[in-house]
């Protein structure tokens, strides 16, 4: 069963730029709890509520790329298993790469989506320290990608669509991961995904961190939540390499063009899925409904294609990506 669905996580983590909004909301709560039959704060509450809504709109319309990065990593943000329980029926997780071990940082399983049998693949972060120890913060090791390859090849054999949920800081950089071929595992997954004759939709729900994200990201449609990010390297990593200063992460975040709208401008992301004001974590149910609607519409489109059409169009989709100039070839 889904052991980490939200529920009891009442205490929400508050980011710095969310603080003024959270303060107002706390005041509203206080007034509410002080209200009795004889003392009525309803007009004050109403005023504060209007103020909170206005403030939230202000803050969220002017978010910097770095603030969006923080939102994409928000510890209270819905994770893969939240979408699984909110969108899918009869989910059954399948485990293991048949070679080394099961990797809980990435999961795969059978599920029903709007009457269609599908395979779900997704990175899974932990909601608290204990879960994050188990989930390794959503950073997969080679066996995780190899499990995905195994399951995706199976899905293709039985013509089941594959729905991927991307949410990882990146593939895990560790001794064991390198010994067991992290690079090869990611590479193989890319290669395999380009040839699977079944529909694939990849939705970036939080952090799309580098090769570890792309490893389950080769798809017929790439969808991104509004505050999700997708990047070749973390802003921190970029800052420490190019500036030699992790403190420049905010600058790096704006240089890397990693927001959903940037990816859409670059014609990589096919659709941006709107989030509720204040971000997905403020209303996971509404967010999941939007994700469901987007998946349904895109899946409906690509289910009409034959396997060969799918892989030909998928090839062309990636074939087009890149920016360069080309002068007429000068013969030597």
């Amino acid at each position: 069963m889904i052991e980490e669905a939200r529920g009891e996580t009442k205490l929400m983590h508050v980011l710095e730029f969310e603080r003024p909004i959270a303060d107002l909301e706390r005041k509203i709560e206080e007034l509410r709890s002080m209200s009795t039959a004889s003392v009525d704060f309803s007009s004050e509450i109403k005023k504060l509520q209007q103020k909170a809504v206005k403030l939230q709109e202000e803050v969220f319309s002017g978010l910097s790329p770095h603030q969006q990065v923080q939102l994409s990593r928000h510890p209270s943000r819905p994770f893969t298993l939240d979408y699984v329980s909110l969108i899918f029926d009869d989910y059954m997780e399948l485990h293991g790469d048949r070679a080394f071990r099961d990797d809980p940082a990435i999961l795969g399983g059978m599920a029903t989506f709007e009457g269609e049998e599908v395979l779900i693949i997704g990175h899974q972060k932990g909601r608290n320290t204990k879960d994050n120890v188990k989930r390794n913060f959503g950073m997969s090791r080679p066996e995780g990608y190899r499990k995905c390859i195994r399951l995706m090849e199976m899905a293709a054999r039985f013509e089941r669509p594959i729905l991927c949920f991307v949410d990882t800081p990146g593939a895990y950089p560790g001794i064991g991961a390198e010994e067991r071929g992290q690079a090869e595992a990611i590479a193989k997954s890319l290669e395999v995904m380009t040839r699977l004759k079944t529909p694939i939709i990849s939705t970036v729900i939080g952090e799309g961190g580098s090769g570890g994200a792309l490893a389950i990201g080769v798809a017929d449609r790439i969808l991104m939540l509004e505050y999700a990010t997708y990047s070749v390297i973390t802003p921190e990593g970029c800052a420490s390499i190019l500036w030699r200063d992790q403190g420049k992460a905010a600058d790096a975040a704006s240089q890397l063009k990693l927001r959903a709208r940037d990816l859409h401008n670059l014609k990589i992301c096919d659709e941006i899925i709107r989030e509720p004001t204040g971000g997905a974590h403020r209303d996971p149910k509404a967010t999941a409904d939007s994700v469901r609607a987007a998946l349904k519409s895109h899946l409906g489109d690509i289910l009409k294609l034959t396997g060969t059409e799918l892989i030909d169009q998928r090839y062309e989709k990636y074939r087009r990506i890149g920016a360069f100039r080309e002068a007429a070839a000068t013969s030597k």
Partner: protein
Amino acid sequence: MAWWSRKKGLPAEGKKSVPSGLWTKCEQCGESLFETDLEENLRVCTACGYHLRLPTPTRVALIVDEDSFVEHDAGMKSTDPLSFHIDTKKYKDSLKRAESKSGPADAYLSGSATIDGHACEVGFFVFEFMGGSMGSVVGEKITRQLERALERRVPALIFSASGGARMQEGVLSLMQMAKTSAARARLQEAGVPYISVLLDPTTGGVAASFAMLGDVIITEPNALIGFAGPRVIEQTIRQQLPEGFQRSEFLMEHGMIDMVVQRQDLKATLSRTIRWFAGRRAEA
């Protein structure tokens, strides 16, 4: 004559730029090596056998048959799609500097050539150009190279030497991993051989795509190969890395590559590998 098509040995201006009596210290044994001896020995330490990096023109001359290399896609240039800059340092300027230092090929030089008479599509990372990083130009050149190999049904060979994706082109660079891997997958399906040669260093997004997908994967001794860089790993796990970690010999021990081959034997090894593949399908 183009800058890469030279007789075996060192490029002419390379020789001129080395003042006589210049010594290079071996990174492994510390031995001071006389430059001319080092060049004579293909930049392999005469004392301990350590393989120093080879400049790309020398590499090309070492591998392909004399005068057989015909460059393709030579007119391709990187643009600056993200207007990437660090404070006042612009990606555009870095490109210009790299070009004046190491030539117009960006970080990848590809073409048709023969190796011991076998027709091949070959490509060499230019590590001298921004650390051999893969942006849109590199990804596109590799994809075209693999598509040419598919069309001609001749073996494709890629000599990787790269720190990974070029972050100045952001997610466009990341997506080159998928693009090149898709092209590689088509070769596999068609039964056209692809030989991947991993040179020092091959890491990040290059390792995690076509470089680790060769039908046969060959390395030179002591090349650094891996997904994450050693410093990133050290910072993450907060412990010292074992001796020889992520070096060619380590990868072979862990089953990730087929062979570690001495530089002087590399061409013969490639030739033998191509011959094995060629008999069956590669020659239409």
